């Protein structure tokens, strides 16, 4: 609980963290911070982490490869020597995905099913996947790599009976203490947690959803990289995201 006498500083801390404090208030607050106030410093850091998410309202845009080349040239120039050979240019994410997603779909599904065979009763997962594939009402949503995992891909299948299954591939195992959380997002409500995907060392994994009713309808399907046990709301970067075709 914050101390009452500190409340007025924290009120300024919000606006300071946003970068909008100015005038006398800014000078006063900077003077206060100079006293090494640990409460305000922690509060500003936490607020910045929250505000930090505002930029995620923007669609990540891949810059021209020339920018990276220029940056690396500068670095090599500063070091006086080229440390490694130039990185091969990467093709644009969408071109790469368009070219490979069709060929990868069957493999992704089988790989995802195989993954689940290892962790869930075989007949249950197998039957569920087969039922989904057979069901004419089954809908199919492509998932595209984003943020730190542009090469990842996946699919989300669900039917009118309320069953669903997520398949992913090329999704690297998460760092220690992190997990991949699955969400459905609708403009009219807060993001809804669906479950967790644990890819294997080959980057393949899946998640079976016994009832999609509590997480649908949706506008967007997303997988984010989160601290372990984060299920209240997404806060980490998106690693897979849907784009309605």
């Amino acid at each position, binding site marked *: 609980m914050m101390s009452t006498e500190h409340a007025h500083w924290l*009120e300024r801390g919000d606006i300071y963290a*946003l970068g909008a404090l*100015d005038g006398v208030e800014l000078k006063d607050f900077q003077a206060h911070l100079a006293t090494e106030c640990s409460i305000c410093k922690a509060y500003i850091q936490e607020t910045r982490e929250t505000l*930090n998410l505002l930029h995620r309202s923007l669609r990540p845009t891949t810059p021209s490869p020339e*920018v990276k080349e220029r940056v690396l040239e500068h670095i090599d120039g500063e070091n006086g020597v080229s*440390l490694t050979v130039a990185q091969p240019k990467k093709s644009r994410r969408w071109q790469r995905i368009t070219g490979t997603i069709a060929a990868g779909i069957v493999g992704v599904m089988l790989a995802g099913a195989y993954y689940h065979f290892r962790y869930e009763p075989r007949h249950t997962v197998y039957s569920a996947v087969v039922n989904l594939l057979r069901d004419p009402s089954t809908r199919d949503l492509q998932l595209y790599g984003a*943020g*730190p995992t542009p090469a990842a891909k996946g699919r989300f299948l669900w039917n009118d009976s309320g069953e669903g299954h997520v398949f992913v591939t090329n999704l690297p195992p998460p760092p220690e203490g992190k997990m991949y959380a699955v969400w459905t997002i609708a403009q009219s409500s807060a993001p809804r947690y669906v479950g967790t995907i644990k890819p294997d060392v080959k980057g393949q994994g899946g998640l079976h959803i016994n009832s999609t009713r509590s997480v649908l309808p949706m506008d967007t399907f997303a997988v984010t990289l989160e601290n372990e046990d984060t299920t209240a709301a997404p*806060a980490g970067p998106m690693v897979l995201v849907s784009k309605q075709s």
Partner: protein
Amino acid sequence: MPVEPLVDPVTLIQRIAAQNRDAFSQFYDRYSPIVYSLALRMLRAQSDAEDLLQEIFLQVWRQATVYSAERGSPEAWLINIARSRAIDKLRSIRRRERSFVLTDDPAAAESPDNVETSAGESESKLVMNSALANLPEAQRRVLELAYFDGLSQSEIAARLAEPLGTVKTRMRAGIQRLRGMLGTQAA
């Protein structure tokens, strides 16, 4: 074929601090799209955004040693650098513009549509936009003017012709609401 495990960004920065070029390259690949989209949104011109992106990542290379995980995530650190530099540029541009001629209301050019292609626009309205969409318009407006346009509380009050106290109240209410939505309640 096994895929490369995702390296923790803190580890990447530590390697960058040791002048590891491959780690820097990975860090750039991972974060340049979000930094570039922010730079584009704030500066609106592709050439300015590319210049800024270059400056930011050079700063990362040179100052990775000063990063401390205790002071926030690498992403927060990077975005903080990006916003600070972008705001400096914006203020410099505004000073230059004021010295020549008064421009049209910049609010008219503030839509992200100016820098985002329409294709995949729905894709851009993701996690945070769900939160933003749930903010009252007045709160969302002041947060966007401060965060993306680098305006101070007084400048926003002047822009919106609202009392300064009202702007501050909306900012705080908006931040508190975001904090609540994201499950990061204040201590």
